[in-house]
């Protein structure tokens, strides 16, 4: 089974967020980047588990410049067989999906696994668009994936329960919590990653369709006023006159 796993970078969750270029670009200065957790913990590790069970290969694909190489090496250290980096800066979800689809269409993948979203821009678009561009079925936000022959059996967490879905391979899946457990790269894997192929491929002519006009930080939280539990009149007055919600 040939498995392709999307790997993207994301700022470490402790990053202090700021913007440059008139609030149109994320300020990457002094930011520690990690592998997007949904890509790493769920898509990649489930891909590796399926390979270990059924045989085959796991290739990672990343759209980005050389600054992505450290996170790609980590994915190789965790266990991917080889990596592809499409050498261009990601513009938007559509452009990334087109780059992945343009690469994948001639390479016969049985399964394309992606994280359900990146934890920075939270677009959640790439999976659906990649599937459409490749004319493959798509299951989003899956928390469980098993393969039987040429059929995938998936579970999705839905309101109040679990939805069980079946789809034929080849298939695109966006992966959510529950699909696998995090794997920490071991020393053997880190050593092996040195010599695994990281193939750099020039991009297709796909361009983004959207432009970021501006980023804004959330409004800072105001101070908390504590009202004595016995003083209902003051609470009502504050809600009415200051908060203007009643």
């Amino acid at each position, binding site marked *: 089974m040939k498995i392709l796993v999307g790997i993207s970078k994301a700022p470490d969750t402790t990053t202090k967020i700021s913007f440059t270029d008139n609030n149109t670009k994320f300020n990457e200065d002094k930011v520690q980047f990690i592998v997007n957790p949904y890509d790493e913990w769920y898509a990649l590790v489930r891909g590796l588990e399926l390979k270990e069970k059924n045989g085959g290969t796991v290739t990672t694909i990343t759209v980005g410049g050389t600054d992505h190489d450290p996170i790609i*090496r980590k994915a190789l250290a965790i266990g991917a067989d080889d990596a592809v980096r499409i050498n261009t800066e990601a513009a938007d979800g559509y452009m990334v999906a087109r780059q992945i689809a343009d690469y994948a269409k001639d390479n016969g993948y049985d399964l394309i696994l992606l994280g359900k979203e990146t934890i920075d821009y939270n677009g959640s678009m790439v999976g659906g668009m990649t599937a459409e561009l490749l004319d493959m079925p798509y299951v989003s936000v899956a928390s469980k994936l098993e393969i039987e022959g040429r059929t995938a059996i998936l579970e999705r967490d839905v309101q109040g329960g679990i939805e069980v879905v079946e789809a034929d391979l080849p298939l695109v899946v966006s992966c959510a919590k529950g699909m696998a457990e995090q794997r920490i790269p071991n*020393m053997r894997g*880190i*050593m092996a990653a040195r010599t695994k192929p990281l193939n750099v491929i020039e991009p297709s002519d796909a361009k983004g369709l959207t432009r970021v006009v501006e980023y804004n930080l959330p409004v800072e939280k105001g101070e908390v006023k504590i009202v004595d539990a016995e003083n209902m009149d003051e609470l009502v007055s504050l809600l009415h006159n200051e908060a203007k919600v009643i």
Partner: protein
Amino acid sequence: MRTDQYQGHDYYEMDELLTDEHKLIRDAARAWIKKDVSPIIEDYYERSEFPSQVIPGLAEIGAFGPYIPTEYGGAGMDQIAYGLIMQELERCDSGLRSTASVQSSLVMYPIWKYGTEEQKQKFLPKLASGEYIGCFGLTEPDHGSNPGGMITNFKDQGDHYLLNGAKLWISNSPFAQVAVVWAKNEDGRINGLLVERGMEGFTTPEMKGKWSLRASATGELVFDNVKVPKENLLPGRSGLGAPLSCLDSARYGIAWGAIGAALDCYDSALRYSKERNQFGKPIAGFQLQQKKLAEMITEITKAQLLTLRLGQLRNEGRATSAQISMAKRNNVEMALKVAREARQIHGGMGVTNEYPIMRHMMNLESVVTYEGTHDIHLLITGLDITGENAFV
């Protein structure tokens, strides 16, 4: 103990001087510790028990002989990778680092450097995988800072050596499968012998009652007419220089490890100072607390740069024993001071097991004493710069 919220601190952007592989190794060690060791370390420390279930994980992250060549089961990494692993281990607990230091620098290193090909093949892969744990016997009850005065000795009996004597303060001894033992031959020359568990007359009683390194096992090595096969002698080097070269490697790892302990104390103190409110604001906003925190990160940063440079020199085979002594001495004292200041910032909470400070502080009292005391390392620097021996 609370959830391990540790974050590294890199005030001078030293990460830019590391390779991507170094950072991957360090971050993997940190992630494994947070997942498998931090949740249990306080409990094992209090029970004064080594958590032996972490041995396979230590091997997985490459903590056992990362710089040993791959043909002997090592990872063939450089000295900085080794240092970073020691830093992360001691960030959790000095006892954890001690176990890995001994295995790497005091057991695998002498077998690699001074052993026969057969000895390397027999022991190194098993030590790298954690199947075997080793220990190192140099210190004796009456010979600590003066190891050359040792009385443990062996006599050539034709087809074997007969070993007699005792070693004390030996990390890992109670469960080690193999001990690298330094003993004098009939000419008074110090040699290394590989003594294996099960050899008749060889016992390893555990020492109890330590208020330090409680999550690491310490014991004795007792040799009562132990017959050691002749092929268990390390032939590559004899004299006191042989064990001291192992100590160079271990002390280098301690220099990194102490930074780890200091970083953990600083990290905890910094977080606590921002969360703890007194007089209507976080205590981080008070000058006396800021003085403590600012001095801590200054001293940590100086130690980080000193130690990284030492790692570069070791990679080039140019680091002197005296340079290693300076780093070990400086960094351990620095870590002790940081621990004590961090304890004050935590107020009363600092003496509880909710925070790691007192455990680090107690551990570091061993670290400042073992592998060359604080005073002995000063005399090594003194000898190096003046040419005058002040030891005797």
